[in-house]
């Protein structure tokens, strides 16, 4: 098939609908005048349109307005059942365009939150864990403790028997029992 035949057949639909520019429409008309094959294609398309109109328009009965309006009015005045009202609300809120944006955004936000370390150590269970990598108490006794709730590390130095300079006013009872 020649290139201009192919171009013509691609544009025939729009030509039949009158949606071509004046110059393009004129070019098609001139081509159809000189090309039997494309002109046959044009006639087929026009016959198709005629047949479609015949089936889709002429065969459709006329409906009386009054009974139709009565049906519409009945729907308007009828109080919707709770379930129908909820369905109607859902249908108008969760439209495909809204869902097409909302659902991916929610999925990605959830993935982001779950992948954050701090989520697993969130505010109410904040882990204040500290690891003691090395310790040298220079001969003193020490205790390493961990507070249960916040997991805070506590390094406790016991008093050296030989003594620091100060003496504590409170002896045994001031040594905290852990």
């Amino acid at each position, binding site marked *: 098939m020649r290139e201009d035949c192919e171009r013509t057949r691609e544009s025939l639909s729009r030509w039949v609908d009158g949606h071509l520019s004046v110059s393009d429409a004129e070019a098609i008309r001139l081509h159809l005048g000189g090309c039997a094959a494309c002109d046959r294609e044009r006639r087929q398309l026009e016959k198709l349109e005629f047949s479609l109109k015949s089936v889709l328009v002429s065969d459709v009965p006329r409906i009386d307005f009054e009974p139709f309006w009565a049906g519409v009015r009945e729907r308007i005045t009828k109080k919707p059942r709770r379930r129908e009202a909820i369905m109607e609300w859902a249908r108008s809120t969760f439209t495909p365009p809204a869902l097409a944006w909302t659902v991916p955004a929610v999925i990605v936000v959830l993935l982001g939150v779950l992948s954050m370390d701090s989520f697993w150590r969130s505010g109410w269970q904040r882990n204040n864990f500290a690891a003691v990598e090395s310790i*040298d108490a220079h001969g003193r006794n020490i205790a390493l403790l961990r507070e249960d709730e916040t997991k805070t590390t506590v390094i406790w130095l016991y008093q050296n028997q030989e003594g620091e300079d100060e003496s504590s006013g409170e002896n045994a009872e001031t040594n905290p029992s852990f």
Partner: protein
Amino acid sequence: MSLLGRMLKRTLLFSYCLICLGAVHSVNAAENSSQTVRIKIGTILANNQGDEIDPKLNTIKNQLKVMKYRSYRLLKEETQNVAWQGNAVFEIPGGRSLVVTPQEFRNKQLALKVRLQHGDKPVVDTTVRLNNGGNFLLGGPPHEGGALVLSISATAQ
């Protein structure tokens, strides 16, 4: 494109943006770790001479419970910014001093070298790895009828 197709395409697109943002954030975080460290020391007197916990200690009240003293009072609080490997020196009551040296920042944790000394004599040397912004407690040195508790916290700037 069908609704499912559009949702899938947009999920992949948003995920890609999230991953890129996360990567940029990580790079920035790594770059930020090479600047300074803010060290904060809270000096607390713990004893059984009263039944009160200083309201200024509300944020660490739960941490102090493990020591079973009845009274805790904040004597002073001091903050210093120090470079990595630099020494931050804090005066501690009773002729003592605390030297804190931030070593490194890795996996969102800081490693601190801490030395408590009494005059020139070292009392304890320790290296502790803690969460950025977190703290640990170093206690025991006697003071005014009770014991000192030092809350040592560090935040990479």
